[in-house]
């Protein structure tokens, strides 16, 4: 019953030549979503990600324009190129969404995250923690005789690296804000 006997990918115009959907090309993208600051808007965005099986690596949200009732949601997500495109389109069609920017493809962008790290220790470990903090330009925002709270700003990778160093030195707790990002230039 194979009436035409056309082989898969027989035409150079076949849609399937463009991209193998099973290829393990997972990309990380930072999206800036400008939304109307209405009740439930964050739940709507998160519900889209969970309902359709997309990943959220980091999520930051705050009102950025009080008079205009606008909030900025910065979300770092992972997926194949097709999934990333789909995420942007799904976000873009939501009623309270004004704009969706893919900062990963729209040109260079600045990405920063703020973290607070509590490190407890005595003796050499305490001195080493303070020394490393200086190297990483982390500030001490709280101190007792047995602990520090460091505040640092940087890329997620920098914070990861600092946290990894602090772990053997007595890292007790870490609080991170998630990524905030803006395009460079005007």
């Amino acid at each position, binding site marked *: 019953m194979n009436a035409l006997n056309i082989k898969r990918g027989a035409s150079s115009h076949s*849609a399937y030549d463009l991209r193998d*959907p099973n290829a393990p090309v997972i990309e990380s993208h930072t999206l800036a979503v400008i939304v109307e600051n209405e009740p439930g808007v964050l739940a709507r965005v998160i519900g889209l990600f969970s309902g359709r099986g997309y990943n959220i690596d980091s999520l930051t949200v705050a009102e950025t324009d009080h008079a205009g009732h606008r909030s900025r949601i910065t979300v770092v997500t992972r997926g194949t190129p097709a999934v990333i495109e789909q995420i942007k389109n799904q976000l*873009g069609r939501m009623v309270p969404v004004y704009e969706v920017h893919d900062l990963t493809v729209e040109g260079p962008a600045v990405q920063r995250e703020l973290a607070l790290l509590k490190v407890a220790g005595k003796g050499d470990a305490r001195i080493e923690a303070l020394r490393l903090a200086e190297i990483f330009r982390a500030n001490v925002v709280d101190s007792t005789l047995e602990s520090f709270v460091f505040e640092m700003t940087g890329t997620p990778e920098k914070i990861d690296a600092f946290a990894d160093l602090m772990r053997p030195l007595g890292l007790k707790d870490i609080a991170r804000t998630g990524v905030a990002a803006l395009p460079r230039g005007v």
Partner: protein
Amino acid sequence: MQMTGARMVVQALKDQGVDTVFGYPGGAVLPIYDEIFQQNDIRHVLVRHEQGAVHMAEGYARSTGKVGVALVTSGPGATNAVTGLTDALLDSIPIVVLSGQVPTFMIGTDGFQEADTVGITRPCTKHNWLVKDTAQLAGTIHKAFHVARSGRPGPVLIDIPKDVQFATAAYTPMESAATGHYAPKRTPDAEAVARMVEMMETAERPVFYTGGGVINSGREASRLLREFVEATGFPITSTLMGLGAYPASGKNWLGMLGMHGLYEANLAMHGCDLMINIGARFDDRITGRISDFSPGSRKVHVDIDPSSINKVIRVDVGIVGDVTETLTEALRQWKARGSKVNREGLAKWWAQINEWRAVKCLSYKPSTTTIKPQYALERLEALTKGMDRYITTEVGQHQMWAAQFLGFEEPHRWMTSGGLGTMGYGLPASIGVQIAHPESLVINVAGEASWLMNMQEMGTAMQFRAPVKQFILNNERLGMVRQWQELLHGERYSSSWSESLPDFVKLAEAFGCKGILCTDPKDLDEAIMEMIRYDGPVIFDCRVEKHENCFPMIPSGKPHNEMLLGDAETQGVIGSKGAVLV
């Protein structure tokens, strides 16, 4: 003008041109019902279950092209509406559901009949609102209608706490209501259209593949589609949702495509070199196995929803736009360039298609002793052809047979639950259609199992004198489940037979309408005519062959060119991989 929130609801509905509301009262919407009682412009249809209200609103909307409206109370009223909302979301049907809510000061206290309605309905609406201030109520209702009908249509819900209904504020007229920034793109990119037109000029084996988007775009879209198809001479097939946009009697019509679509339609899709998708979404019922879907074709996809394009199938040209505007632009460009097509290629293509047509894939084994379901629908089609007829269906084998054997000449004449596949849709939908078209013949083609899911709505049909005809193909089985169990699960018919069915004739009498039983093919014509002639609702118990399977069929996980045409071909065709698909 100052007025209460409850009055605002009625005023805003009037301003939006609403003439009918389907609903069910309860504590949290009593102020609105009090206002409905005191006016005559809007008719309220009392349903028997809130799911019925939403399906009726859907039937009303699909058959008129207008926005359907349902009104339900808080808590259980709202949760009962969820299936209908999801159904409307998947089939892109514009409806507005108004729900009552406990007073604002009680929200969050687990009050009587309190539910987090906006939370529950957030994923099954296009958008929803909880209105906490009466001053915002009228504006929100106007915005809700705008959202429901703009872009890709869909269901919206407005949750209105009881104190907001009682409080007084200034009414926001429709003209001054802010519809916000929500204005989906309608005008297609002319360059993308040009690329499509260029492809159309040279294609040897083109096919139009159209869907519900053509119908949602309005009657002009169907007219333009017909003009384009006739002018180019291209073959055309359609999804379940798009039937009627191009007439079934049209010479280029291949019939429905997809899992139970026609042989010629599916093979044309598989073998084409240019696929022009207009307002369809490459649903899994259409594509079969993605990796072998139409492997040799260039693909164009016209859709008003950007997220539909490249979601499932990657296309060569994606055109975001309204179907009417896109077809207008495409026709203009195509004519301006000299109305060219590849005549030689087309002639060969049609010769090939006619070979496929000659297979006569809808053939079935006739019987003189039992009514074959296909025969029942052939007779229904023959006896109602040319009538001012609307068809709704439930979900299952009968739905697919109806799509195969009934012909639709116009859009808005065929109402079926496509995306969600909601059993229990057809009866309430038929009432919604009949309320909108009181003089027309409205038939719900049903299976007995689906029909029982919302049969309480016969009470609504009686109360509101909606003479809907319930044409039940009764095989005493959950036919499609049974078919899959036969093909996939070793003929172990787990819970797929209907025991203890009611006597449908007595049931009709209990509701006060007419019941007809038909068991013999010889009596069928006369029985159908009796159903059509009867001035009132009819429950028609058509006893059909119990083990008939629906063919053609593309088994799960198979491509289009591996269709099954009949029972002899079904042994061992679906592997374990296919069995996990639905």
